[in-house]
């Protein structure tokens, strides 16, 4: 039986019969993506834009109702921008910079994120996850119209998976019965409870946090709250051990109550009981409509290996973090960014399969960093021992009066992309006086350039960024193309971010906009060596 597990916010890819279902011989596809959540859709978009045929299988027909993720970080917007769907997100999203922190019955301080200037995208936007997914899907539709070979199959549930040496066999159930397909590569993006992971009997270990959170998305009718993030520790109104209020588009506010571990979910989710908490927070005269509510508990864990033969795991299927710090979808998008070009090169036969292993190396490194950060936030928000609680409150009490403890207060940290320090695709870091933030392994920071922004000019393929340095305009090294982007260091942002104390610079930049190698001047042999290393041909 093919029954929906959730209702839809947007029906985007209704079930339709495909030729594969009537084929006499099982059809083989280069890439099959399991799961059409944000990560599966983005994977399909990346590959489709490269002209790589990709089939997406999802057991629903569109985007699920209910916004889980609401905070999308700059790096995610940059990746989306590269895929052509970033602008609608920024246009629809709510940008915020101001936050207030409360303890008990008083505001202890406020802060301004003071985003660095010279970037196309804001540090963060708030946007309901269904919109985020829909904008990715809109772009898929646009790319398909231009000929991108992306095929999304709704109500196609993967029921069994058989892994062979050089391909994978998938058993799929549809409303019209079962069929099989084969894939050279499978990307499993089927979420935190990944059936693919379970069917392959793979591990998913980590730490469970013994607390539950009640989320209520509400639409305000008569009350105006500013576009700020308000976080209460131990609020006097007793609606939860901590409470978060955050604005989303369409006049919707996200309220997040920490309600303890032993709760009666059914009871807590009754509208009257949610309203009791909300009224305690908002006051009795506030009028609002309930848009969505849910209770969640969470774990921080990841798979030991993100690649198992021809099956690659991405997004929540590979790693799960607490929502504090918004590292779920944000880190999943970095998985896609990392995997897309690697899979593209391997499919073309221009890089060895070892390049796919580097996906695990780099993204597991990223997952560990995210798990570390979100575990730290969680331990601050929900202290687990009497002593830890006492220190937490000591920080808050001091923070009301002096500045230094404010940097310790941790109600979730900005999700930042990780720098792949010391990993195997990294080439030479030979730019004397070069800034630390653009060291080899870093994601390129944006900067204004003559007619727009730097990151808009990177990506797709390898780029040779030269600043006040000579180099050939086009190169081809064993089938891998490199094109040059020639700039000069007159803009202060660019100079600060890419030159530092150096007079000139040459950066080899990967298709996912991470720095592969850098030097002060161009040298053909050095470039070829770095490119080989970056493609795991070393």
């Amino acid at each position, binding site marked *: 039986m093919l029954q929906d597990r959730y209702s839809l916010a947007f029906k985007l890819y209704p079930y339709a019969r495909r030729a594969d279902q009537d084929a006499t011989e099982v059809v083989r596809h280069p890439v099959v993506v399991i799961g059409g959540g944000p990560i599966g859709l983005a994977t399909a978009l990346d590959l489709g834009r490269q002209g790589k045929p990709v089939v997406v299988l999802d057991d629903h027909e569109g985007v699920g109702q209910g916004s889980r993720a609401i905070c999308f970080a700059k790096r995610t917007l940059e990746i989306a921008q590269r895929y052509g769907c970033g602008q609608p997100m920024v246009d629809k999203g709510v940008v915020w910079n101001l936050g207030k922190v409360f303890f008990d019955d008083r505001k202890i301080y406020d802060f301004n994120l003071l985003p660095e200037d010279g970037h196309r995208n804001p540090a963060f936007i708030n946007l309901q996850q269904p919109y985020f997914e829909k904008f990715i899907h809109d772009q898929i539709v646009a790319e398909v119209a231009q000929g991108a070979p992306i095929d999304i199959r709704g109500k196609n549930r993967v029921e069994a998976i058989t892994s062979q040496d050089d391909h994978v066999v998938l058993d799929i159930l549809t409303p019209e019965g079962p069929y099989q397909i084969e894939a050279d590569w499978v990307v499993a993006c089927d979420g935190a409870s990944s059936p693919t992971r379970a069917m392959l009997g793979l591990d998913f270990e980590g730490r469970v946090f013994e607390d539950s959170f009640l989320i209520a998305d509400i639409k305000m009718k008569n009350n105006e709250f500013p576009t700020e993030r308000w976080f209460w520790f131990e609020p006097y109104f007793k609606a939860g051990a901590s409470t978060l209020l955050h604005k989303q588009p369409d006049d919707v506010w996200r309220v997040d109550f920490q309600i303890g571990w032993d709760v009666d979910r059914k009871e807590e989710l009754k509208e009257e009981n949610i309203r009791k908490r909300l009224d305690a927070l908002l006051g009795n005269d506030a009028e609002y409509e309930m848009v969505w509510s849910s209770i969640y508990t969470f774990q921080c864990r990841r798979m030991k290996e993100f690649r198992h033969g021809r099956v690659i795991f991405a997004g929540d299927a590979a790693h799960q973090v607490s929502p504090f710090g918004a590292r779920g979808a944000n880190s999943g998008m970095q998985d896609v960014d990392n995997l897309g070009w690697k899979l593209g090169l391997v499919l073309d036969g221009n890089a060895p399969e070892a390049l796919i292993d580097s996906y695990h190396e780099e993204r597991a490194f990223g997952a560990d960093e995210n798990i570390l950060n979100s575990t730290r936030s969680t331990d601050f928000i929900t202290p687990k021992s009497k*002593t830890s609680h*006492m*220190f937490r*409150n*000591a*920080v808050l*009490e*001091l923070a009301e009066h002096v500045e*230094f*403890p404010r940097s*310790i207060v941790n109600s979730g940290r900005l999700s930042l992309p990780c720098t792949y320090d010391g990993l195997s695709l990294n080439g030479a870091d030979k730019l004397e006086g070069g800034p630390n933030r653009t060291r080899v392994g870093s994601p390129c920071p944006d900067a204004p350039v003559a007619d727009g922004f730097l990151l808009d000019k990177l990506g797709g393929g390898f780029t040779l960024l030269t600043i006040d340095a000579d180099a050939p305009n086009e190169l081809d090294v064993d089938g891998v193309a490199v094109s040059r982007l020639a700039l000069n260091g007159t803009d202060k942002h660019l100079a600060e971010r890419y030159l530092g104390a150096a007079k000139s610079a040459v950066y080899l930049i990967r298709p996912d906009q991470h720095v592969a190698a850098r030097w002060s001047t161009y040298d053909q042999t050095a470039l070829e060596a770095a490119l080989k290393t970056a493609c795991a041909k070393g």
Partner: protein
Amino acid sequence: MSDLNLKPNLAAPDAFYEELIATHEGLQDDESAALNARLILILANHIGDSDVLSAAMKLAKDPASVSS
């Protein structure tokens, strides 16, 4: 990086000790514990150096780990 100073460094040790105890006078155990927590945070921030702080935490946890 600097090392944790384990040599006597207080100009007036008796006075310091007296003041420390006096600070806790009249407090319940919980209040004293909270005061200590605030004091540790204030001192840690003043010191700043993470190597020094790590060494101090290790020493506090296991005084026998260092002998001088």
